[in-house]
């Protein structure tokens, strides 16, 4: 259905997300750090980004800030993190995340959120 960039360093979470995304025919592009994610975003027009916060060599919010403030990219970003503190959620949303899903997550719920944002993006593109 859409192209999903998964920025996640945990190998198990990556495999789970690949399978979950496959259930709705999404194509997953998996990267493990912020710099690889920047490279993919420079060359692909992905439909949505699933972003972990704790990444090797950088905090996930750096990528979010880079996307929103420096590149001005409006691609929906869902933060998928084990950090559940209210402060972190607010921080991520204020940095430009469209949604926040905490781990452990329900795959059905995640897919529903992805669908909502991808369809919203498609509707926006059509009205333009």
């Amino acid at each position, binding site marked *: 259905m859409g192209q999903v960039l998964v920025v996640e360093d945990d190998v*198990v979470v990556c495999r789970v997300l690949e399978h979950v995304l496959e259930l709705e025919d999404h194509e997953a592009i998996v990267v493990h750090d912020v710099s690889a994610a920047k490279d993919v975003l420079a060359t692909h027009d992905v439909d949505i980004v699933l972003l972990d916060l704790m990444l*090797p060599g950088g905090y996930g919010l750096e990528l979010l800030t880079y996307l929103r403030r420096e590149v001005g990219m409006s691609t929906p970003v869902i933060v998928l993190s084990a950090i559940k503190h209210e402060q972190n959620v607010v921080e991520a949303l204020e940095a430009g995340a469209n949604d926040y899903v905490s781990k*452990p997550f*329900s*795959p059905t*719920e995640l897919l529903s959120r992805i669908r909502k944002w991808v369809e919203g993006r498609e509707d926006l593109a059509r009205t333009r």
Partner: protein
Amino acid sequence: MRTWRGRGDALYASLILGLFVLETVVLAVLSWAALVGSGGVLPDSAFRNIVIGAVLATGLAVLLATSFVLLYHVLTQRRAGVVGGIGEWASLWAGVVFSGAAAPEGPLPRDGVEALIAMREVLRGVDGTRIDELFQTYRIPSMALESARAGFRRRRLPGGGRQALAGRLDGLEVLARVRAPEAFEPLMGFLSDETPSVRRAALQGLARTIAAMPSSTVRSRATERFSAALRTTDLPAGVLEDALILLGDVASKVAGDLLRSPDASRSHVLVALSVVGKMGLLTLSDDAAALVGDPHSDVRASAIRALCRLGYLPPGSEPSIIAALRDEVEFVRSQAVRALALASAEVAVPKLHCLLADQSWWVRRSAAQTLLRMGARGGAALEDAARRSPDKYARQMAVQSLLDAGKIDPAEARRMREAV
């Protein structure tokens, strides 16, 4: 992976630096010996010894650098193998859980168990329940329990101590991560173990297990027993705090028990108060407020800090906070000053204005910071203190705080300081 490489690179850089320093020293000694030796001052045998020493030191340096590189590559390969193995198993399990693929035959290798447990930590809902069923199919909880107990037996054998402890801790860790309700009873047994690390692992395993239990009478009973066991344990405060946090939504029940129980020690009460603040357990605000008048200063300070973290003063608690502003211990006064930000401005601002002249720098600083947080009225009071307070220290603190907060510029601060 990058962290691993980063650490390896840092170690390699340190090693090479060390070897360069060593080689520099060796070459310096060799040059000196050659110069002195050619003048006939140094006997031939001594010169020969220095040359042999230099060659040996250089050989050792090369050997060390080569060994490091080889070892680093071997460990990296092994590490990549483990990660790859877990990744393959995670793919296989994802197929089983999401696509209904056939589950593999048991017994599972270590990577298979690790991937399944890691997947359970990521998934909830029906998929999480499916993994719980797989845990039972492969008897993972009972095998982990067996490992924890086998270690206990093995340590009685000569030389089996350290290995046995590692096995037990491994087993307890698996039990903690699997969160199987049937592990509760055996884990309670491990709480009376003589080894503190085993007691610690058991406590954390119990907390995780209770947190994962569905709400029921069984969970209530388990919580009661955990709470009672916690009050008698001698583990450090940090361990108890971690366990309480791991309890999740049951933490308020256990922390409440600790705050109200007459047999809870002071350190237990301090742990509970810390958890009330950190986890935002608003239902325990009255219990925390009741401890603001405790005879022990550390309990008084922790109770006020918990209320500050909650951001809420329960009805009727304001007088005890105001009384704490005159506490003999400066740390308690300092906490009470911060808590005043939660009281009404009519009450708080005049008191904070007075406290800018407190004998403790910390209290004066807290008073100024709290006034700054109290909006226009607080800011005006701080400016008034900077210009008109009869106390020299109050004026200084007010000016400095206004300057730090960017409310006045350095020139204005200088004028204020010179005016009085």
